[in-house]
């Protein structure tokens, strides 16, 4: 039982016990309300440089298996839970979550009143946080200054830190119908998997790939992935997106990709107070009124009117296609005069509901047309 301390930049602290690796870590404190899927969450590159607070009290119950990770490593910079499992129970489990966190050097803390912490973040907004244990525990004031001195999320360009070093290909399942160039800004494994199931051969390319390089593959479509950081600072992919739009190649974006498309169209982005992170967000498709329960992980959003009026852009008219019913945040964009659309949420789920997987078919239909 190694004591640990969670310190927020505004000076509030929570005591607990070290979980995973002992040490210190910094990041943006965010909370996730999903009741399942911790393994997918931990390995989602979009959580890079974030300390994730799980609102579900019991974490680690099903251990860690080899099938569920969404990337090759855990990306969260710290992990905050209330009651870690003492033993895992699942026929697929290979090791405990505690062991996995420790093996990957992820500093965590358990025994925290995560609900109190979540309420604090809800009221004050996502903020900088540090988790300290072992030799790193020190005078609280000193720790608070350390946290305050750590880099902020706003203005952080992080895609290049999580993207693949070199291109790789995910082959189509069954007969190959299309080639898609996917710009990896922090892509999750489930996304190319869903595309592959539609007969798409996915060429996953580093975040630094330019528009010309993308088009040089002569893809049937281009995909903009999810990823961490502030979209306002991610200029390269925005330029690449404009090149794709200019070329008239069908384009689909998810999450960060939605923000990149928005910026390419000339729309602004802004930071949400505490973001959407969970698997229960109601998203309404404005055209049909249908509501999907969707998986979310975003701290930023596109700034656009949600009353359904199309906006003129250099690439023709764009409409907000989806909104979050909880807070009316833009959850999707659809170009009326070009072949491009994007959503802010995660149709690939992992974790979360599969309500919106139809979007992958929509993408292939667009490539067919």
């Amino acid at each position, binding site marked *: 039982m190694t004591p640990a301390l969670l310190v927020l930049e505004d000076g509030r602290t*929570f005591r607990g016990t070290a979980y995973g690796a002992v040490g210190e870590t910094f990041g943006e404190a965010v*909370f996730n*309300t*999903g*009741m*399942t*899927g911790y*393994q*997918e969450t931990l390995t989602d590159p979009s959580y890079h440089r974030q300390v994730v607070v799980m*609102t*579900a*009290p*019991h974490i680690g*119950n*099903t251990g860690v*298996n080899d*099938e*569920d990770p969404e990337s090759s490593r855990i990306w969260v910079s710290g992990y905050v839970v*209330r*009651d870690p*499992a*003492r*033993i*895992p*129970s*699942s*026929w*697929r489990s290979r090791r405990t979550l505690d062991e996995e966190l420790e093996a990957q050097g992820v500093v965590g803390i358990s025994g925290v*009143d*995560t*609900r*109190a912490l*979540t*309420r604090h973040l*809800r009221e004050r907004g996502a903020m900088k946080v540090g988790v300290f244990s072992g030799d790193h525990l020190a005078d609280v004031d000193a720790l608070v200054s350390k946290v305050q001195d750590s880099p902020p999320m706003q203005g952080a360009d992080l895609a290049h830190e999580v993207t693949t070093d070199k291109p790789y290909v995910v082959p189509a399942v069954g007969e190959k119908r299309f080639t898609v160039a996917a710009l990896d800004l922090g892509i999750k494994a489930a996304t190319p998997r869903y595309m592959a199931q539609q007969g798409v051969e996915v060429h996953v390319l580093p975040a630094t790939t330019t528009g010309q390089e993308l088009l040089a593959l002569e893809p049937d479509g281009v995909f903009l992935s999810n990823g961490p950081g502030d979209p306002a600072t991610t200029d390269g992919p925005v330029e690449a997106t404009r090149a794709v739009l200019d070329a008239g190649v069908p384009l689909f974006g998810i999450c960060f990709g939605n923000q990149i498309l928005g910026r390419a169209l000339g729309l602004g982005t802004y930071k949400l107070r505490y973001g959407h992170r*969970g*698997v*229960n*967000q*109601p998203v*309404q498709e404005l055209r049909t*009124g*249908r*509501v999907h*329960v969707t998986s979310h992980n975003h701290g930023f959003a596109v700034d656009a009117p949600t009353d359904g009026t199309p906006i003129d852009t250099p690439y023709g008219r764009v409409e907000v296609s989806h909104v979050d*019913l*909880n*807070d009316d945040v833009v959850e999707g964009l659809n170009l009326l005069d070009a072949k491009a659309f994007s959503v802010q949420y995660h149709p690939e*789920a*992992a*974790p*979360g*509901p*599969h309500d919106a997987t139809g979007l992958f078919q929509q993408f292939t239909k667009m490539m067919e047309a």
Partner: protein
Amino acid sequence: MPKREDLKHVLVIGSGPILIGQAAEFDYSGTQACRVLKAEGLRVTLINSNPATIMTDPEFADATYLEPITPEFVTKIIEKERPDALLATLGGQTALNAAMSLHEAGVLEQYGVELIGADVDAIRRGEDRQEFKTIVEQVGGESARSVVCHTTDELLAGVKDLGYPVVVRPSFTMGGSGGGIAHNEADLLRIGGGGLHASVTTEVLLEESILGWKEYELELMRDKNDNVVVICSIENLDPMGVHTGDSVTVAPAMTLTDREYQAMRDLAIAIIRAVGVDTGGCNIQFAVNPDDGRIVVIEMNPRVSRSSALASKATGFPIAKIAARLAIGYTLDEIPNDITRETPSAFEPSLDYVVGKIPRFSFEKFPGADRELTTTMKSVGEAMAIGRSFVEALQKAMRSLEQTPSQFWLEPDPAGTAQDALDLARTPHDMRLLTVERALRLGATPEQVYDATGIDPWFVDQLLSLVELHAKLKDAPDLDVDLLRLAKRMGCSDKQIAAVRGLTEQQVRAARHETGVRPVYKTVDTCAAEFAAETPYHYSSYDEETEVQPSDKRKLLILGSGPNRIGQGIEFDYACVHASFALSDAGFETVMVNCNPETVSTDYDTSDRLYFEPLTVEDVLEVVAAEQESARQGGGELVGVIVQLGGQTPLRLAQELKDCGVPIVGTSPEAIHLAEERGAFGDVLAAAGLPAPKYGMARSYDEAKQIAESVGYPVLVRPSYVLGGRGMEIVYSDDMLVDYVQRSTLIGPDAPVLVDRFLEDAVEIDVDALYDGTDRYLAGVMEHIEEAGIHSGDSACALPPVTLGRADLERIRTSTLGIASGVGVRGLLNVQYALKDDVLYVLEANPRASRTVPFVSKATAVQVAKAAARIMLGTSIADLRGEGLLPKSGDGGDLPYDAPISVKEAVLPFGRFRTAAGEGVDTVLGPEMKSTGEVMGIDRVFGTAYAKSQAAAYGELPTKGRVFVSVANRDKRAVLFPVKRLADLGFEVLATEGTADVLRRNGVEATVVGKHSHGKGDDVVPMILAGEVDLILNTPFGVGARKDGYEIRTAAVARGVPCITTVQGAAACVQGIEALVRGDIGVRSLQEHHASFHWGEA
């Protein structure tokens, strides 16, 4: 797309009496539905025969019919009311079955009534096992391999493929009634045969056994735009093989990865779409093979269910309320989430806590009943608790059960080794958790426990963590603050800690308060704190931050009645809910404390604040402290705690709460004691000059015999410290007394028995009254139909009393005043009298809400519980008369001659229980209460009211056919007249020899049948089983399950033949049959009945 404009008038069908498998949860759902529909401006017509429900309060519908939920009566109501639509998905299986019958009879079509929520095809697809199986396969799911059977031969053929053990599931029944697990051919014939009978379609399913698999349930909702959301996942701690109603369950699911959960969710959504539940809720059960994750779909309920009530309380998402809105055309995104107010209902709740539910059983009421848990539900109630961890929720739920033993470590362990405990745990039984914990504590390994029980290793490990805590608590030199906090965080009560440390509960509490180890109160908010909650729905936890808001109001804490059990059912919840409404109207802030997820009181809409907490002194004291702190911060005041309305549960806490300085409003704990303690109460009666049956207290057989001789046989004997009629029997002779003393394990030097003179053939009278210190108000005088000696809860009664004269009523009035003032009542008082040989004996008095309060309220058009709550807070009866809450003049003891007659009839659960050998349990009524619920029949005259009550409880009384009569010698004279009348009405009479002789001599032709005990096969039992008998009059031969009577009554229960076991009941029954034969039974709404009282006029 808001609500449909073509619907103006909706008929809602309730679920009728409380039964095992269909209980208070349907009052909760129905009440929500009626409220919503009325608020939407629709005319609401309601039918429900259960008077103890909130939904049948006249203000919840425009026309409320307390009529039997049979196709005949519902048809009459449809004819009269002409509703546009019928909503049948909120009244359990009863409502669904009634709707199906109405459809099949063409009634819905004839009157143009649209079935909303789920249509006939959807109901059939969801409920018919074969159709459902086909759908599961179509959407890519798997079902257990199975065979549908309609005959015994098909059962035997089917099992050849599937092998034993095999699961038997009848179609169209609730709570798994008639189902079970057959391990061999004898089991199969018994369970399968019963199942064929229990199913309205004579259909059972034989199914491959998936015993031991993990069991899950998902609660879903769908709207007309095909939006589907999953409200809650529930995991059963007890693996497959135990009915989910009898299982310890946990929400959310604890041992699924996202992949497996989503696979289940995908299947569930595909199923609800394919079945075609248009709008509303349903639940779907799954089994998961723990070795490879194979998912098998078990079944669905295309309606709101017990689980959906639990899910609503567990998540804060009000399924029934939303279902009602969806049924009239709204979509999920158009309905705001009550709790956040800003976000819509089109989402899936996220929980940042754990919910545990534990069933409560009443096996002690049914001697001989097999306690093994199977796929037939046997529990009579449940407790739910919320904690920030599984062990915290589990331990809170365990102490919420209020049973001994129900908490770990309080009682000494039974003898035996770890292996003994493991062997015991192998068979699912009531409170198996205690056995499992004991096994682990005695050294069994988690693997051994898993092998023995199939309980998931994660849960076993959680129990192991408690075993480890026990060792720490036991071995630690001091109970330091860290250890104390750890134990509290893991959900231990002060009592448990005290038991392990050899301290008193008070010492632990003092230590805790000194070191500041106090609970905080979190909020159930549907969204894991993502959005601010506007509804103060709280639970305690030993965590850091409390969320109770300051309040500037004057407030009252109302203690509810905990889990339903036989003897303490929803009648008490009704009183608590009424108090909450009345006090809210009077300007108080109301704070409800309760732990029963089935009830209206635990609806967050009912009171201003809700604490979902166990009803123990410790838990209540902490809530009081939290509310006092809230008042201190906000400038409000905690006026006091109401303990009189929730039955024995809160009453038992009264003295200790008062001793801890908590203000108790209404009747003081001292006054309560005065009424409950025999000696003290005797003094009150003596002072008022009121007679009571002679009695004495015995510690041995000799003493008992002596008392019996001095007071005279028959005597009523019972253990002195047991409540609710437990172990109570009527004894007619020395021999029987010896037998009682030998059988009873409850007697000894430290546990005396009370021996009362039993007043045979007396008329028992139940009185509910109000007293404010000066005035009394007789709320209702009820005359029991059965003689004294049958527990008042099991006895039918009539209000106004049908045979009492004015002088009798006047004596009752005076006596009740004497008791009320002598005891010092402020609020409600229930008195039971026995009238014999013109002497009015006082049997007992209870200074609290009684089981009959809702019945009296409905029968007399006066909101008795509301008035009581106001009196407890100091308003006088005179003022309440002025205000209109009580009649301007007159009272329930002085009803006009043309007042309607109301009859209450009890509903008994005998059909649920079997002995280990598979035989039925005895159905004789006695001083120990056995009924689970009640119905009300109301009409202008007694006969029709009685007939309605019987139709509501058992199905229609027969108007022709065969009646079998077999009565004890002492009853032969009394039964003559009713039997003669039946013969005149054209019934064929069968009788045993002795009875037949008496009948013939008096001019009634009777066919003689043999005695079953003679074993010649010419007796009535095979005839009953063959469906050749339509009515049975069989009074017990003295006391005890004598063979013949037992067999006859058991057969009657098996075939659903009305079986009258008292002479008085026989007379009433004949009046009812006469009314049916005359055919002048109509329907009349409660509102119409109530208008005839003219209470408003001075």
